[in-house]
């Protein structure tokens, strides 16, 4: 993914979806759903953990400025560097500048949504810096030149035969269609890259204000490699990843892996506070954290919408979403997919660009039920639908004038009894002009939009008049 999309055509995409996608995606989601359920069942305090997680995240959002300032101070005193990036371009330029200062030719990268968001790979490649994805799934899709279809298993849409073909073509070898063998080949190639790359790039799962600590959660060990072997570590992390302290971390680490993959903990959880102290311990000589805003601080204005920043990126909402399971990750058009993408992308890219996404949901509420930090996703979806319909500070309403006028009139009528009764009195008379054989086969605009596809039933009687004659009498009802 290079540039942020100019428009996300969810509907267009969903109509032409390759048949292989839902099948592969559902194989992954059902695995994660049952894994999560098993872990949750083991933990009697699960609901209390969710409640604590939700409250701490809200508290952190409301105090974000104080915690970020504390984080910066702690990282500086630990000997690290902190950079603030207002935009994606700022963040990319800062990474480039650090790379140039250290004469970096190759960078190894551990899976990170923030760098996907800013299009870092594309940007560095244009500057002739080779950037290599090292998470196996990310490595595969980087070779394939496509985007991720699932937050946890980004290459799940590719069959082993397809992956073998990609390896054979791109790496000039004869790769067998065997997952274990393919993983071994990737290990060998990437091991060499870890040892020779001058820079390691990562994202981060949490930033702990108390001590200025970056927390990274991975399973393969590539995250550890990227932050252990090169002399330089640059982390790009959204400002929303901040949490108050290590006590809070106990809650989120217990929620994260169980919700994401159905593990109790992911294999490796690293807690990094600044650069190494002694040369012999390994780890980078220099540590840089780039704090990415990219519109987040504006979204904080909206007390409903900003709850999206409680997210800890587990992907549980996508795994249970009936819409996601049938379209997969690509349909959501940007670095983040599923229900969380449907509420984040419109806020970050603007309502106009992502106006289809708030409708990419049945509002069934399954996502809110599994969310480990209780993000009220359906509420935010409805809130965003309203913004799509009525327009917001930067976008015009998307609903056509006649429909809005009709909605405006009906809300007026429903609010004032006399208008309603007057309308009920004259409408049957007005409609009788168009009535043919008890139906209205064609009506003038805007009602013609309805009658184009089916006839309109005319208003016949009104309920109040009918109720007066048809309701059971009081006496009958009360005697039994």
């Amino acid at each position, binding site marked *: 993914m290079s540039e942020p999309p100019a428009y996300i055509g969810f509907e267009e995409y969903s109509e032409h979806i390759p048949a292989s996608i839902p099948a592969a995606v559902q194989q992954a989601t059902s695995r994660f759903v049952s894994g999560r359920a098993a872990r949750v069942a083991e933990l009697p305090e699960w609901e209390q953990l969710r409640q604590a997680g939700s409250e701490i995240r809200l*508290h952190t959002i409301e105090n*974000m400025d104080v915690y970020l300032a504390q984080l910066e101070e702690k990282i500086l005193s630990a000997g690290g560097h902190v950079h603030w990036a207002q935009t994606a371009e700022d963040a990319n330029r800062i990474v480039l500048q650090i790379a140039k200062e250290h004469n970096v030719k190759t960078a190894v990268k551990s899976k990170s949504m923030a760098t996907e968001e800013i299009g870092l790979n594309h940007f560095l490649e244009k500057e002739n810096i080779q950037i290599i994805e090292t998470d196996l799934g990310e490595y595969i899709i980087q070779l394939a030149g496509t985007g991720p279809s699932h937050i946890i298993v*980004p*290459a799940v849409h590719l069959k082993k035969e397809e992956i073998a073909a990609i390896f054979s073509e791109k790496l000039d070898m004869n790769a067998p269609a065997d997952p274990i063998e393919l993983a071994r080949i990737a290990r060998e190639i990437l091991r060499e890259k870890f040892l020779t790359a001058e820079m390691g790039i990562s994202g981060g799962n949490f930033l702990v204000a108390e001590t200025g600590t970056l927390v990274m959660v991975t399973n393969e060990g590539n995250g550890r490699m990227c932050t252990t072997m090169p002399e330089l570590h640059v982390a790009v992390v959204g400002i929303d990843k901040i949490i108050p302290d290590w006590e809070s971390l106990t809650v989120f680490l217990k929620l994260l892996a169980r919700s994401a993959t159905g593990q109790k903990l992911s294999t*490796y959880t690293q807690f990094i506070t600044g650069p190494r102290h002694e040369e012999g311990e390994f780890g980078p000589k220099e540590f840089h954290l780039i704090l990415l*805003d990219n519109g987040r601080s504006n979204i904080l204005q909206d007390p409903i919408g900003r709850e999206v920043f409680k997210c800890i990126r587990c992907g549980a909402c996508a795994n249970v979403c009936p819409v996601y399971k049938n379209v997969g990750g690509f349909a959501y058009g940007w670095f983040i997919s599923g229900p969380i993408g449907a509420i984040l992308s419109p806020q970050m890219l603007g309502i106009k660009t992502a106006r289809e996404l708030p409708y990419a949901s049945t509002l069934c509420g399954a996502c809110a039920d599994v969310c480990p930090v209780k993000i009220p996703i359906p509420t935010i979806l409805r809130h965003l639908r309203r913004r799509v319909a009525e327009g917001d500070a930067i976008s015009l309403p998307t609903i056509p004038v006649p429909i809005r006028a009709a909605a405006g009139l009906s809300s007026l009528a429903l609010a004032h009894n006399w208008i309603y009764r007057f309308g009920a009195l004259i409408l049957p008379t007005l409609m009788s002009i168009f009535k043919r054989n008890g139906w209205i086969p064609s009506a003038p605009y805007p009602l013609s939009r309805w009658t184009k596809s089916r006839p309109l039933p005319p208003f016949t009687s009104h309920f109040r008049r009918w109720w007066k004659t048809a309701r059971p009498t009081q006496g009958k009802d009360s005697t039994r």
Partner: protein
Amino acid sequence: MTNPILENIRRSLARTPHPTRSLRPDILEPRLPESEDSEVERFLLEVNKLSGKAERLEQANILSALQSLIVEQNIRKATVWNTPRLNQLQITNHLSSLGVELVSPNADKHTSAQCDLGITEADFLLPETGTLVLRSSAEKPRAVSLAPRVHLAIVRPEMLRADMHQVFAEAKDGNYLVFITGPSRTADIELTVTLGVHGPKNLYVWMIVQTSNI
């Protein structure tokens, strides 16, 4: 000193110029430990569930255990944390006597990466998840538990902590900490679980217990 991002956050949140934060919501109480024996049992069980190989080992049997490990995993080169406890257990002497080439734990990354076996202790153990918690220093380099294809952790029951809370209280002021929960794994290709994709493929944990007097 102005920071446009912090200023914009304050504007969006309608904060006062010199805000103070409200009190953080409460957090659940830590889990309480059970008897040492059942905590050890739980820890070993969880490591084994994750395809690790964890067992109790009497100190007197270390040499023979090393010998079978070396044969089983075809170990030629090894690197070992330089800690008093591992030195006292004479791990490096044992390895040399078994014909294994030793590489300094502080060797450069290319040399470290060629080791078949890395031996560490742990600073803490979490029984509920089967997690090894390792700090880092020049004597305890990070690469030893990462670069070799086999990782052996030699641990003791005193390292057990009932919950993360206790570990964090003791370890949060260091510059580095890693939780290791099972061997390196991925399910990125057709959801097939594959071990050892970047980190060690094999994780051994030996819980050293008092030699019983028979």
